[in-house]
């Protein structure tokens, strides 16, 4: 994958993406617009129409749905390619903003100093997603994964692998 360095022998442990709720909210408008053709076809039954008109409305509906399908897949691509990859040595943070706009950064697990979990709001609480803030040594940049599912479990997993990395790199300190 372009921009991502995974060394030979380095194990990919997990991939973290945003919660499905985020995808659902981002594509809700498209889902609503996709219902329009069905509404139009249903409304046709209320008036006298010829079979020809039915095919005209069907043509417009299919054109509309083709465009919406492509727009939905752009949203899906942005969602899917926006990911955190946890390996046994580091975390790779891939921020996919839009098509042709992304940012890849990484930090070693033994550089982690602090992880904060932030769960805000009733939806996030009940659907169990939140934001992880990771502070690393020697950098002012704070790494953040937004709206990750089960943030406490993710934090524990990262901290567990952080401890292992510390033992490997600094056996006396660990």
């Amino acid at each position, binding site marked *: 994958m372009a921009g991502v360095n995974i060394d030979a022998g380095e194990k990919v442990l997990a991939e973290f993406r945003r919660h499905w709720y985020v995808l659902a909210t981002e594509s809700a408008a498209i889902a609503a617009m996709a219902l329009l053709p069905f509404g139009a076809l249903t409304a046709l039954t209320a008036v006298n129409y010829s079979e020809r008109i039915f095919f*005209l409305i069907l*043509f417009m509906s299919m*054109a509309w749905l083709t*465009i919406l*399908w*492509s727009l939905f897949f752009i949203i899906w*691509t942005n969602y899917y390619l926006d990911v955190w990859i946890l390996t046994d040595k580091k975390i790779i943070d891939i921020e996919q903003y839009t098509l*042709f706009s992304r940012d890849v950064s990484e930090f070693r697990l033994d550089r982690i100093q602090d992880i904060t979990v932030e769960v805000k709001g009733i939806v996030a609480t009940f659907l169990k997603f939140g934001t992880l803030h990771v502070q690393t040594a020697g950098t002012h940049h704070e790494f953040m994964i937004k709206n990750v599912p089960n943030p406490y479990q993710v934090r524990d997993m990262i901290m567990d692998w952080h401890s292992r990395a510390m033992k490997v790199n600094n056996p006396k300190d660990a």
Partner: protein
Amino acid sequence: MQNLLDNLDSLAPEFLWTSAFFVVIFTILIAWALSYHWREYSIDMHRDAKMFKGYLSIAGVLMVAMFLSLILYLY
């Protein structure tokens, strides 16, 4: 409603064909951009190729249905 349908029925066939080809060009451009992303930034090539094929299949079915309904309307 009847007026709206009459107006739609009076659209020129050239306009409908142009609209259909606009949708095809739009889909080709999006498919090109998406294929670049799925090929270049893929984490799991096999799984990601399947997903992209899923996109193309559904887009293809919708476009075939679009052209069939246009042909059935015009001829």
